[in-house]
């Protein structure tokens, strides 16, 4: 399936884009998606070590599966306030 991954802060700067689009197998988990992005987008490789992932606006973890038509976002540890 085709997925779009929204990027924020350092990840957006390093990718030079607000999002990535990629083709992934059905039922891929978050950990594998991070690995895939590290391989396909070398400028993001280092970021994948401490990236936070959200699926449908909730935090998701390596073992979580990516549902169809999910809103996926990746970003660094937060620094608001």
């Amino acid at each position, binding site marked *: 399936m085709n997925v779009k991954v929204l990027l*924020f802060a350092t990840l957006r700067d390093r990718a030079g884009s607000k999002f990535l689009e990629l083709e992934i197998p059905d039922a891929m988990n978050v950990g594998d998606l991070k690995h895939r992005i590290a391989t396909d987008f070398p400028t993001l490789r280092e970021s994948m070590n*401490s990236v*936070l992932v*959200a699926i449908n606006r909730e*935090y998701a973890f390596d073992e979580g599966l990516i549902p169809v038509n999910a809103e996926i*976002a990746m*970003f660094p540890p937060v620094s*608001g*306030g």
Partner: protein
Amino acid sequence: MSKLTLIEITQDEIDLDALLSRITSVNTGAAAIFTGLVRGFTQNGRQNVTEYLEYEAYQPMAEEIMKQVAEEIRIKWPDVEGIALVQRVGRLFPQTPTVMIACSAAHRNTGVFEAARYGIDRLKEIVPVWKKEVGPNGEAWVEGEHFHEIRK
């Protein structure tokens, strides 16, 4: 009274008086307000100068997580009545309020101080907002410290 929760991510100036009035009623006798500001000078060994901070949010998720923080406050301090969580985004200069957490209740000994403290701590841990610091020597994203707290 009804328990009002006010959640906002805004480009506009944070009006502390207006927000306070929105979370108080005739039953309110106390409110604890925390606001964070842009610090222009930071002494940590050497002096660091900030010209401005550029804030950005993943807005729809940030609003959801701020609602979650407000719910956590309500569970921990059930006597808190009004809760306001406001994060300003965009280019913000020194002395500008960037965030406000306010908790109101009938009396001061209801946990309002602790609730506001919890609100800002939790916001800084889990709400998807980032800031880039711009100074005379260039710009740098401020790295968040909280990676493992997310699983709580």
